[in-house]
């Protein structure tokens, strides 16, 4: 990246950065995300792992796409949820599709479990980051294999870890404190959904890129289930919201 010194009219020197993104050779790389998904929340519960995300694809500040499926199942044993650039998520799904295909082609009784997929994704994300051309996503990978539950996260710079409950984006700030306080090892499915919905509601109220259309996905040893989209009940009847201009007469 080269820096160009620009002398402003009033004598201040501004420095602009010239990106070598589109150089003479015509190479390109990711600079900013365009269509983005917001938080994904995931947690382990008694029988497996459960993930939730809304179905919104924002185009900057516009809530442009409202039926984006941001949680997909990978092979027999894993679920992948993504926030960030949706086109990069689709690219990742293509990589994983090929990976699972080749794995199935062996037809030998061995299969890639969630741990293997998580690590593979970590390598992909980290390698892209090293080329300064990241896949602009935060990924949540959950799964169950042979009774073992697995839940992990990978970021766009290749940071990865496993935990009992994870969240991306705003979820880190709004959902995780709730999960830290109320998560238990032996939550039943219904309790887990209730806890997740509690977090989703907070995100719906407070995250401006969240929409009221969610999918909850669960994975157990038996298999994957991704729910149909549904909405949460919200309450806006707070007294402070009545007569919004009560305390301020006039247009300002």
């Amino acid at each position, binding site marked *: 990246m080269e820096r160009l010194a620009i002398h402003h009219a009033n004598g201040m020197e501004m420095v602009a950065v010239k990106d070598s993104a589109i150089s003479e050779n015509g190479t390109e790389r990711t600079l900013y995300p365009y269509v983005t998904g917001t938080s994904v929340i995931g947690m382990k519960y008694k029988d497996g792992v459960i993930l939730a995300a809304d179905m919104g694809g924002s185009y900057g500040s516009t809530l442009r796409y409202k039926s984006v499926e941001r949680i997909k199942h990978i092979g027999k044993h894993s679920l992948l949820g993504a926030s960030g650039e949706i086109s990069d998520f689709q690219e990742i799904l293509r990589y994983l599709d090929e990976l699972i295909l080749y794995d199935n082609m*062996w037809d*030998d*009784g*061995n299969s*890639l*479990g969630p*741990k*293997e997929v*998580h*690590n*593979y994704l970590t*390598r992909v994300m980290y390698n892209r980051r090293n080329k300064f051309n990241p896949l602009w996503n935060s990924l949540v990978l959950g799964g169950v294999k*042979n009774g073992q539950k697995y839940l992990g996260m990978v970021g766009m710079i290749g940071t990865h870890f496993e935990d009992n409950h994870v969240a991306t984006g705003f979820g880190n700030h709004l959902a995780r404190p709730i999960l830290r306080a109320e998560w238990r090892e032996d939550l039943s499915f219904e309790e887990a959904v209730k806890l997740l919905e509690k977090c989703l509601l907070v995100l719906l109220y407070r995250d401006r890129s969240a929409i009221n259309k969610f999918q909850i996905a669960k994975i157990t040893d038996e298999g994957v289930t991704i729910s149909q989209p549904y909405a949460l009940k919200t309450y806006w009847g707070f007294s402070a919201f009545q007569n919004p201009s009560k305390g301020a007469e006039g247009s300002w």
Partner: protein
Amino acid sequence: MFRNQYDTDVTTWSPAGRLFQVEYAMEAVKQGAAAVGLRSTSHVVLATVNKAASDLSSHQRKVFKIDDHIGVAIAGLTADGRVLSRYLRNECINHSFVYESPLPVSRLVVRLADKAQVCTQRSWKRPFGVGLLVAGLDETGAHLYYNCPSGNYFEYQAFAIGSRSQAAKTFMERRFEAFNGYSRDELIKDALFAIKETLQGEKLTSSICTVAVVGIGEPFHMLDQKTIQEVIDSIDIKEDDASAAAADQAPMQEEDKSSEAAAADQASMQEEDKSSEAAPMDI
């Protein structure tokens, strides 16, 4: 097998549909010092006879650890074996790096077989002159495979390769049905007994053999001399007690050099969970 006009090149077929160079490579395996492998549902044991070039030299290494869950024993050109072991280690470690989990044994074996097959179809190459007994554990269980220079591989309950291996095979043929239920120590004992069979009367001591084990909760490792000697001693004691057990010593048999058995090899790769009845064992 005798010299003929079709055996100069590995890429020349004989009119009978055989690749003589590949068969000659398998002869090299038969001339090497013996190696045996046995498996149960939870453990796999490899044992080899270590020939020393002379009294002054050290013994040849024939058992290699490939990863925590896989090891190989070789017979034939040990230099080729060493190179292949390096390849196998590389494959395992690359897989571990990307997937954080051990490479399934069957997949490793297929890659090795494919590598060997390439050398049977290039005029500027020669087949590897080494047979490998691959012992490993993965989530589908304990496995023992034999990879031969032709590029074929088979899965076995128990197998022996190298010189005088027929004696070991005969011994194991009588007992293999019980192997799945064997404990780890019984497996080791039988492995040493099988090795003893190949020695044809020579004294079995821990200094001329190597034994390695891999099992559930037990990474691949070689047993130390003291442990091996203790097992050998217990075998000897049992033998002295039961003189009727002398019947166990099978008479020496010449390696069956019948070439028509080799033709079965030229066929495409077969993956079989085999007991000894697939005995074109003279592979």
